[in-house]
């Protein structure tokens, strides 16, 4: 039954691997960086956390060069269909690398790392490991690759979120994340096995072709979909697969929270987009297909539930990180709206939204870290009167939050604009979803504004404290992020062109 390959075949395989490796340089580079970081940490014995941080930062920045080179390469499959290279994947490579760089910067800014952990060594390495996983998630085109990359991300994330070993909440976060993640990936792999059973393929393109050609049992297909969705939904943090996220976001070190909420979520969406767009058999128009619309209905339910649940529950939060966790659930809902549209505008909208989310969410978490350095707390009540003591931080945080609400002239508004444009470009089909999105974003204003409300409208409990300057670097960074958030809200052409350019998925027929 299983025959060994002949010599010529082996030669072919080796050639193909070599060719694939040429398109795999960023990942290889990052893997080397990962190992280098461990080595450097061993060499410095963890005594030079700043050096390590900057090294990571520089290393990540260097990877951009290799990623940039990939623009010249032709889109195609690598490693026997395990992996693809397309503009979509390149976009996410940039995205994740930038995310990781932000995470590094945030880590260096967070004073809790000085007190909570003795050695920061593996931390940066794990950030990079998670980055590799995510990069691969965005490019995986085989169920196996999907599973592997997701597990790589998950395992790194478990450790990262529990990185403050002596902090009970951090450990608790890790435990919950672990249990939840393990079960979810178990469900997903079970779903994969059903898909494999239906089609005898693990390659996404081949699965799609198989499904289109031979049809399928809708019940099994739906079960498989649901199970797979449990895995993906856990990554993007959408209702009802979101339960881990508030606890983990609250308990994990803040940079990790930010990293999870932006990068991990984006990775989930990369996977979701690729998986759903490619695997679902498409007719002329994706939403005319019966099975497809079933999936879409499912996604629509999840999306609506996420928007409502996330926004509504966030109102009650007293902890800023937890509040942002719920808000990130809601944002997953908005992003899903873009996925549901199932065309290039939708993809573009999702990509743009992710970009805007990257900017504003990291900005918000950065300010939260700065404030936490000062107050040692993320409780809303401790934000009272801070606007007066840290005016720039207050202003910046307000801008980021306004952007998260989606008010002009911020980049978050443009993100929502694209999402809703994508929905309405389908005529009256998705107006209902757009309405839900619109209404819940009004609700979101309320809780987002709780933070500026406490910072500016309320008096500090200790009124005599003087103004505190978080340092030149922090100020500059905050200002730059703030200006960027507004700048891209007004002149978003480069971002949206980039998103549009990157919305090309390999192997997708309906473009």
């Amino acid at each position: 039954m299983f025959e060994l390959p002949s010599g010529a075949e082996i030669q072919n395989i080796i050639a193909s691997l070599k060719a694939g490796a040429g398109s795999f340089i960023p990942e290889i580079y990052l893997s080397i960086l990962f190992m280098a970081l461990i080595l450097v940490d061993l060499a410095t014995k963890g005594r030079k956390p700043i050096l390590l941080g900057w090294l990571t930062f520089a290393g990540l920045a260097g990877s951009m060069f290799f990623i940039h080179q990939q623009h010249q390469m032709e889109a195609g499959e690598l490693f026997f269909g395990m992996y693809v290279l397309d503009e979509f994947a390149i976009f996410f490579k940039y995205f994740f690398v930038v995310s990781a760089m932000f995470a590094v910067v945030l880590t260096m800014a967070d004073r809790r790392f000085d007190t909570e952990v003795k050695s920061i060594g593996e931390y940066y390495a794990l950030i990079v490991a998670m980055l590799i996983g995510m990069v691969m998630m965005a490019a995986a085109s085989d169920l196996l690759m999907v599973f592997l990359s997701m597990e790589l991300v998950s395992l790194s994330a478990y450790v990262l979120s529990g990185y403050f070993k002596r902090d009970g909440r951090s450990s608790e976060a890790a435990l919950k994340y672990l249990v939840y993640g393990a079960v979810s990936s178990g469900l997903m792999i079970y779903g994969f096995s059903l898909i494999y059973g239906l089609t005898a393929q693990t390659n996404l393109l081949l699965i799609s072709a198989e499904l289109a050609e031979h049809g399928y049992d809708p019940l099994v297909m739906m079960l498989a979909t649901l199970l797979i969705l449990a895995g993906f939904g856990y990554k993007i943090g959408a209702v009802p697969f979101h339960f881990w996220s508030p606890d983990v976001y609250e308990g994990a070190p803040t940079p990790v929270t930010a990293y999870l909420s932006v990068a991990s979520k984006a990775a989930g969406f990369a996977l979701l987009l690729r998986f759903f767009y490619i695997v679902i058999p498409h007719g002329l128009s994706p939403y005319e297909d019966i099975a497809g619309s079933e999936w879409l209905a499912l996604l629509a339910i999840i999306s609506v539930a996420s928007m409502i649940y996330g926004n509504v529950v966030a109102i009650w939060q007293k902890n800023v990180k937890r509040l942002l966790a719920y808000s990130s659930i809601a944002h997953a809902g908005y992003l899903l709206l873009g996925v549901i549209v199932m065309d290039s505008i939708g993809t573009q909208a999702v990509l743009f939204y992710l970009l805007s989310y990257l900017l504003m969410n990291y900005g918000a978490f950065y300010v939260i870290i700065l404030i936490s350095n000062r107050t040692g707390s993320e409780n809303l009540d401790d934000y009272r009167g801070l606007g007066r003591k840290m005016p720039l931080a207050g202003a910046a945080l307000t801008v980021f939050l306004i952007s998260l609400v989606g008010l002009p002239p911020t980049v978050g508004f443009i993100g929502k604009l694209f999402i809703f444009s994508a929905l309405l470009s389908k005529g009256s089909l998705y107006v209902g979803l757009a309405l839900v999105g619109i209404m819940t974003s009004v609700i979101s204003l309320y809780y987002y504004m709780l933070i500026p409300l406490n910072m500016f409208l309320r008096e500090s409990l200790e009124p005599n404290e003087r103004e505190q300057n978080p340092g030149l670097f922090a100020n500059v960074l905050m200002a730059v992020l703030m200006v960027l958030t507004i700048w891209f809200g007004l002149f978003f052409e480069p971002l949206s062109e980039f998103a549009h350019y990157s919305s090309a998925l390999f192997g997708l027929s309906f473009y």
Partner: protein
Amino acid sequence: MEQLTAIGINHYLTISAILFALGLFAVMTRRNAIVILMGVELILNAANINFLAFSKWNGGMEGVMFSLFVIVLAAAEAAVALAIIINIYKIFNTVDVSSVDSMKE
């Protein structure tokens, strides 16, 4: 009769489903973190059985490869998980996941 006596794909799938259900049951009801991990292993192994069965009946190596990777990754996951659970034990003096609930709502 032959269908009943000969072991067919449905047998595999049934076993797998039972394993899956048992795993889920363990995850949902057991308090001990280690037992929950074992439940997860059951789920993964249920999937493995599926993969192998489909691989045999559909003809192709993908399922086999898949299950190999799953086994490996399950081991890796167990390693990480045990580390975390040990840490939890250090802090909370328990491995009862239901008592680790300082963050809620």
